[in-house]
């Protein structure tokens, strides 16, 4: 259950798009001419489209939250989560968990750990205690 709780947002976002930042610019410069397609989650920075345009390639943005915010496309998230579950059940995908035991009583410590970047893997709240 702890491993399952570590996966949803991180794995769905990774499934949809893996890159951003400098990697996004590098992708624009590396993508295949004419049929290349770059996908990224968000992309908060400023990026030149010229390298992409010179290759006649295309770009799509992804916001993992959209189906939850709009109510549209939630079946697609369900499909992705079923695929991820298949990978996890087969042992092909194993989340790395932070070893600390966190319950609802100590959850504020966990948020601090994540906010400070001090977690050594995914932090999961053991709600059932």
């Amino acid at each position, binding site marked *: 259950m*702890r491993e399952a709780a570590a*996966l*949803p947002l991180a794995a769905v976002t990774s499934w949809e798009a893996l890159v951003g930042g400098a990697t996004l610019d590098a992708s624009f410069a590396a993508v295949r001419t004419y049929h290349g397609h770059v996908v990224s989650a968000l992309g908060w920075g400023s990026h030149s489209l010229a390298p992409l345009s010179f290759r006649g390639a295309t770009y799509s943005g992804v916001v993992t939250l959209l189906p*939850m915010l709009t109510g549209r496309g939630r079946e697609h998230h369900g499909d992705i989560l079923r695929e991820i579950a298949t990978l996890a059940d087969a042992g092909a995908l194993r989340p790395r968990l932070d070893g600390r035991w966190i319950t609802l009583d100590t*959850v504020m410590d966990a*948020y601090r750990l*994540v906010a400070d970047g001090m977690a050594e893997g*995914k932090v999961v709240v053991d*709600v059932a205690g």
Partner: protein
Amino acid sequence: MRVVASGINPLDTKIQVGRAAHARIQLPAVLGLDLAGVVVAVGADVTGFEPGDEVYGLCGGVGDLQGLAGEYAAVDAR
């Protein structure tokens, strides 16, 4: 759903300090996007899930969806 475990995401901590406008959450709110737990009851038109099923999901904690870092949560079966 009876929540057994809920993962923490960096987005939760950004919502906490009011730096995640794109999450469109109304404070005060329960945090938590990730859930693993057990189905307790299903709606009349829900197929594919039944009480006792162990499931996981990305189904709360943004917009007007209840956060999942709590003991129980009502979530969209899709």
